[in-house]
């Protein structure tokens, strides 16, 4: 997992850290039981105040994404959903909005878009549940 933060934006640094840890877990780069860098180490690596890193980790622990284990540091916890249902929907919509807006710009019709979408989903092994 490579965490990188950017200053000067409208997303606070601690939020950039929590987002990237959640994304790394969602993408499978971090597995259950994997350790994340210590507060001190991550602060040093990304040159960010250790209190800011500690705040990010505290939020991830509170949300059940990470857990602190004696002697082993901070680990990815067993819980599956790192996002709430509402947050998952919000993120899905956000990703779809980008794709939809691009598809419309390229003059595709709804049927073509849906058909294409289905093909791609089947390609990665997803199928209709009904």
């Amino acid at each position, binding site marked *: 997992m490579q965490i990188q*933060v950017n*200053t*000067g*934006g*409208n*997303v*606070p*640094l*601690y939020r950039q850290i929590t987002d990237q840890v959640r994304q790394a877990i969602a993408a499978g780069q971090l597995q259950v039981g994997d350790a994340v860098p210590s507060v*001190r180490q991550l*602060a*040093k690596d990304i*040159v*960010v*105040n*250790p*209190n*800011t890193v*500690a*705040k990010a980790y505290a939020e991830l622990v509170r949300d059940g994404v990470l857990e602190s284990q004696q002697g082993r540091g901070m680990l990815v916890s067993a819980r599956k959903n790192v996002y709430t249902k509402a947050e998952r929907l919000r993120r899905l919509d956000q990703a779809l909005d980008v794709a939809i807006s691009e598809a419309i710009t390229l003059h595709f019709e709804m049927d073509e878009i849906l058909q294409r979408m289905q093909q791609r989903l089947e390609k990665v092994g997803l199928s209709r549940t009904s």
Partner: protein
Amino acid sequence: MEDNRVIYTEDLTRYFGQQAVVRNLNLAVPRGAVVGLLGLNGAGKTTTLRMLLGMLEPTRGHATVLGKDSRDLTPEDRGRIGFTGEGHFLYDWMSIRDTEKFGRDTFPRWDDRLFQETVDRFGIARLAHVRSLSRGQRAGVSLASTLATAPELLILDDPSLGLDPVSRRALNETLIDFCATRQRSVLLSTHMLDDVERVADRVAIIVDGRLLVNTSLDDLQSRVAIWSVDGTFDPTRAAHVPGLIHSRPLGGRWMLTVADPDAESEAAIARLSATAPQRVNASLEDIVLAYLSRSRAEHSFYAGAN
């Protein structure tokens, strides 16, 4: 109860002649915090730091530093405070090695590791003479000398002034390393907002000698919002918006920066234009600029009125 504040001031005020340079300042620095002190030149930052260090008497109020009134700091107390001022004072005729030896002989708790790591980070040769150093390297040696005294509290007055990007990076890394244990505290006066966002966890904004903001970075970013409103003329000239910090034009729209917006503020903003106002997220720079620009605008207004 143990006091968790390494610095706190109560109505700290300083006049120079008739002019109040620092007015009723109530600033607190918790142990383990890195506070970025922001403000325009002449806002009172350096005067505040000089009072904290006991180098200048307050006209009114007082400052408590490491549990003592700043006017009564003993040499031992001063040994627990590290200070690097503008210009980075060093002896020009010494080499880096001489500077290190001088420090080691002068300070009982001199930390060789901190000195060497800092000097290395700034890429400075041990045998170089102080007079041959670049501005960034001078800053590095000066900072190394201050940190090596193992202070509990570090006070820095504009340390990044005139530094190249590599030296600025080295400065930030050094400060992060310094506060890694989260027990040492830093008060950092600067104009570099990117550095504050990285290195600090709290911000204090001084405008015309008054402290307008003194809170955590996250709290500041969550409590200040920006609305984008249609209009050719500044819509806030005719209507009152509760919590308004500053209003500025941007491409045919007006950006309204508002602190602690409530239903009343939102309603007031909604009445300003025919189209629905859009709320946008504020960056640290947006927020700080809003506070500082307001001060500048008021200055010109007063100048015009006189």
